[in-house]
């Protein structure tokens, strides 16, 4: 249980940076309001609160990528991780400590996005909201996994450089502000080779009441990616920290 000490340090390290915390909560909420207002005028199906809320929630997880990548990379670059590696902490302790602290934040993001979405008029049943977590939570895993990979392999500077690219990519290939089927072509193919569009589609359908059976394919994609990225995250961490 020694990972708890390090997890609680990582937790503090994250939550004592109030600006980034606020950004990670307020920016998605702001975008949700903005696009819902646009939707009122242009009457696009995709800009209704019902459709926007799950998309923006998953989009907000881009912050999880950044937070987890930056902390890990910083610790790697400073001698702090080196010090930790001389302690009795085991690999599994490290993985847990650099993973668990982001879960409460992901839950908070979900809470804020759904609260704003519902205030804007999204009409979901309680059951469907709970059901949608079977895809939304794994999407958080996908993002923390990506963060672990980046944090293990890249420097803090490199991470902030590709960070904005990544956020843009998620918002485009996730089909959050556009109908991917309408765009079509290679663009649609790339989007559905990545997990984000699958996650967003699945969440939208579940919230619309289609049940889980109809989104099974999407779910497999998301779960597959969650497992692969998480394993890759662990491997990158191990690769960079193993004594050699």
């Amino acid at each position, binding site marked *: 249980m*020694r990972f*708890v000490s390090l997890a609680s*340090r990582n937790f*503090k390290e994250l939550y004592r940076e109030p600006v980034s915390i606020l950004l990670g909560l307020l920016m998605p909420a702001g975008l949700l309001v903005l696009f819902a207002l646009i939707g009122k005028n242009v009457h696009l199906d995709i800009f209704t609160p019902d459709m926007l809320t799950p998309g923006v929630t998953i989009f907000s997880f881009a912050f999880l990528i950044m937070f987890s990548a930056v902390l890990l990379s910083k610790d790697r670059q400073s*001698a702090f991780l080196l010090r930790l590696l001389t302690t009795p902490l085991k690999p599994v302790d490290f993985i847990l400590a650099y993973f668990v602290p982001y879960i409460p934040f992901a839950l908070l993001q979900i809470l804020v996005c759904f609260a704003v979405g519902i205030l804007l008029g999204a009409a979901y049943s309680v059951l469907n909201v709970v059901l949608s977590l079977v895809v939304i939570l794994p999407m958080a895993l996908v993002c923390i996994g990506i963060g672990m990979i980046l944090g293990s392999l890249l420097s803090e500077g490199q991470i902030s450089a590709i960070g904005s690219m990544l956020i843009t990519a998620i918002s485009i290939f996730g089909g959050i502000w556009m109908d991917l089927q309408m765009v079509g072509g290679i663009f649609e193919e790339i989007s559905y080779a990545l997990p984000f569009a699958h996650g967003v589609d699945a969440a939208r359908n579940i919230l619309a009441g289609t049940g889980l059976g109809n989104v099974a394919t999407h779910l497999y994609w998301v779960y597959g990616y969650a497992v692969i990225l998480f394993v890759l995250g662990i491997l990158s961490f191990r690769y960079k920290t193993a004594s050699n």
Partner: protein
Amino acid sequence: MNKVFNKENGDEEHNAIQTINLSKRYGDFVAVDGINLEIKKGELFSILGPNGAGKTTTIKILSCLLLPTEGTAKIMGYDIKENPQLIKEIIDVSPQETAIAGHLNAWENLVLMGGIYGLEKKETEKRARELLDLLDLPGREKEQVRKYSGGMKRRLSIAMAMMSDPQVLFLDEPTLGLDPQARKAMWEKIEGLKGKKTIVLTTHYLEEADALADRIAILKAGKIIAIDTPDELKNNSKSMQSIAIKTKNISDDVVKGIKEMYSDVVFKANKIEIKARKLNVDKIVDYLRSNEVNIEGISMKEPSLDDVFLELTGEGGNQ
């Protein structure tokens, strides 16, 4: 000079650290080159050497951060390759670079280390309080440490290595960047641990090694080129004693007379400086007196560890 630690004195029971042909290569570059060391339990052992000599690399291998390319080492009887997990329970390391959690305060940083080593809460808090005293951060214990000055961070980083009360403590340049008071406090703390723990300390402050270490190894380009007590190192050194005598009324003839006694004599600015392996101070003073030279002051310098170091490693260090 190159006295290797006597095998008979150093049986396994009494060794805290033993290295056997320990080597580390990076590609073709040899960072650590066949080191054989025996460090006794309770010994304070200092590793000196120019930049890039392989001190940090050696410590990283001994603390199970790096695997040796060849050879191995035992810490308290455990092999670094076979039992790193057991070794990590009984050692602690203060890395060369400051290693602290920036968003935590000093207290939290110390408590963090206690938790990682699985200490009881009460014991953790007791030790953290003691170490906070050592840190001497009046009124700033509750401040996030990223706002501390470099030296304050440094002190905390070293104190964190002492939380687990390890059997073997590695201190890589512990007093780098500390002000004289903090350095003195750190020396006292290290003195206090002497005999109770095995300590391996690297430093570029040779007077620090001189004052603290039981034995010193001098490393150059990955090899041990000397290993002994500080006193023996100085005694065996080819370095010279020097004497400087201040006087106003010395004649060229008298200077010449001294030059006949010693070969290394410099006279300038009313000061005559003589250097030799062994100086006969009596003879020099008598000679000056008998020539009615007014001696205004005398200062004498014994060979220091610095001289020994420069002599052994060459003035240009590794280059």
